[in-house]
């Protein structure tokens, strides 16, 4: 059985985001637990702040091999197929720019690919000096008994400064946890059924 990060305590899971100073400090500031850690992923902790960061994540099981799912996340042309409000993704070397479509227009979020383990994990962190401080990670594990792949995505971000407005606009009032979960479900639909379900009765309807 592959080691599951869900077996790690809160602090370790947050650190497993392999994040820079912000989160590490956040984890260290966390008061010593009065009880032994449980088996749940750190982000399901009752508290919602990890230092200055907010963390959200979700796991979805997709009936597809890890390699196929990894390809989807690695291919800038496919990301826009299932990530809502994403206009384009530009890749050059390690640098990955996410062009986000907001009601105020498009704006780029510059990140670096900080981890790549083929068919296992990918992580991106906002570029140094970027307006938005964000870190996202996708991990793939074999689901039990041939049920496919458990796809876990989580995001840690530091809401700050003038950027909050932008960020909020980008999310159009939606909680990033919900947004991320919905993206994962779209990915699941695309891989399992070849399309994304809609109740629209005509092309272009909502």
């Amino acid at each position, binding site marked *: 059985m592959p080691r599951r990060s869900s077996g790690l305590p809160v602090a370790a899971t947050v650190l497993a985001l392999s994040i820079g100073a912000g989160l590490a400090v956040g984890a260290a500031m966390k008061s010593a637990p009065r009880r032994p850690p449980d088996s749940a992923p750190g982000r399901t902790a009752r508290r919602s702040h990890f230092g200055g960061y907010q963390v959200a994540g979700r796991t979805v099981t997709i*009936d597809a091999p890890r390699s196929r799912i990894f390809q989807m996340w690695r291919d800038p042309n496919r990301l826009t197929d299932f990530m809502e409000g994403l206009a384009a993704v530009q890749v050059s070397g390690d640098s990955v720019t996410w062009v986000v479509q907001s009601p105020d227009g498009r704006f780029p979020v510059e990140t670096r690919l900080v981890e790549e383990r083929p068919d296992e994990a990918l992580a991106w962190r906002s570029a140094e000096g970027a307006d938005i401080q964000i870190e996202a990670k996708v991990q793939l594990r074999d689901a039990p008994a041939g049920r496919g792949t458990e796809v876990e995505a989580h995001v840690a971000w530091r809401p700050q400064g003038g950027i909050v407005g932008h960020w909020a606009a980008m999310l159009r009032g939606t909680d990033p946890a919900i947004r991320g979960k919905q993206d994962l479900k779209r990915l*699941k*639909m695309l891989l*399992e*059924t*070849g399309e994304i*379900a809609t*109740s629209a009765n*005509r092309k272009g309807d909502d």
Partner: protein
Amino acid sequence: MRALTWHGKHDVRVDTVPDPQIVNPRDAIIEVTATAICGSDLHLYDAVIPGLQPGDILGHEFMGRVVETGPKSTLKKGDRVVVPFTISCGACFFCGQGQFSACDNSNPVEKQEASELLYGHAVSGLFGYSHMTGGYPGGQAEYVRVPFSDVGPIVIPDGIPDEQVLFLSDILPTGWMAAENCDIQPGDTVAVWGCGPVGLFAIQSALLMGAHQVIAIDHYPGRLDLARGLGAKVIDYTQTHVLEALMEMTGGIGPDAVIDAVGMESHGFAPDRIMDAVKQKIGVGADNIHALRMALMAVRKGGRVSIPGVYGGMADKFPMGALMEKGLQVRTGQTHVQKYTRELLHRILEGEIDTTFLISHRLSLEDAPTGYRNFHGKQNEWTKVVMTPGAASGPAQGGDHG
């Protein structure tokens, strides 16, 4: 096209709305030749199921001809098909287990939030129902966009009248699954609350599955007659103490299995029902579970409880003690229609199952509001309404039993 649209409690209208189009690759467009009103539609008509929006097209029991296909549809133009009311992808974990009404991929992601919140998990897509189940435009219309048309619709050979196969879309498999969930053993008594279409098909199925006797409970003489015609014993709950009668009719043991084919809008003047009805009306999320309470009290120790009747919210005064102390088993759910259509079509073609005996009225789709009003208000005579799009408006054509 013309379609029956919902505008609020007891307000449905036939409107002209845009025709549907192929949107996704696996879609097909069906031209509807027959469509029915279901007891589930009455929950929408009474506005006790949340998540409808004015203008929504209702209807989830329909069949017709394929007029357009998406590139990944396996249907051909001209195919005659019955469409299951449950929308299922055929590829997810649940569809793989035959649990089609639990499909993970048919409810649009944004619409999944409500049921995740209310039920802990997102439910699948259904035609012509709540936006919680996707808000898919329904089949009381001239045309329907059918997603996943390569796995849902069942192709019907020509020469078989619509009315013989239409109910494969919902109530026939629903009655069948309700009986199957009773796990019927030799010598078993099955008691069925509700002699609407679902109850009637459950009675027919339970007898086919070898029940020793089926006891049907309702208060409409017309509907009880239909049950009697199928071979059931009947109890009119306005005349008889149901629990006592059931004990006496089962040698003091109680029914081995019970079926609640009433759902969240139980009738009658029992005090618990009136309390429930008041709470339902003021919208505190309490369903009316009177029939279910009776069923739980009636069923024998270690017996089986099958609940095809629809519930949407919370229940008060649920007899939890009876459930636990008697060691009951409960099975329920929206029907896994796709799991049963092939077998049931075969049984229809073999003449083992008649589906037409309960049709009481035939209308033009143009007269759908009349159909709703009477199927809701005159249940003794109006047992099942079948409508034809395109037909001229006119008085209802009676059924076989007058």
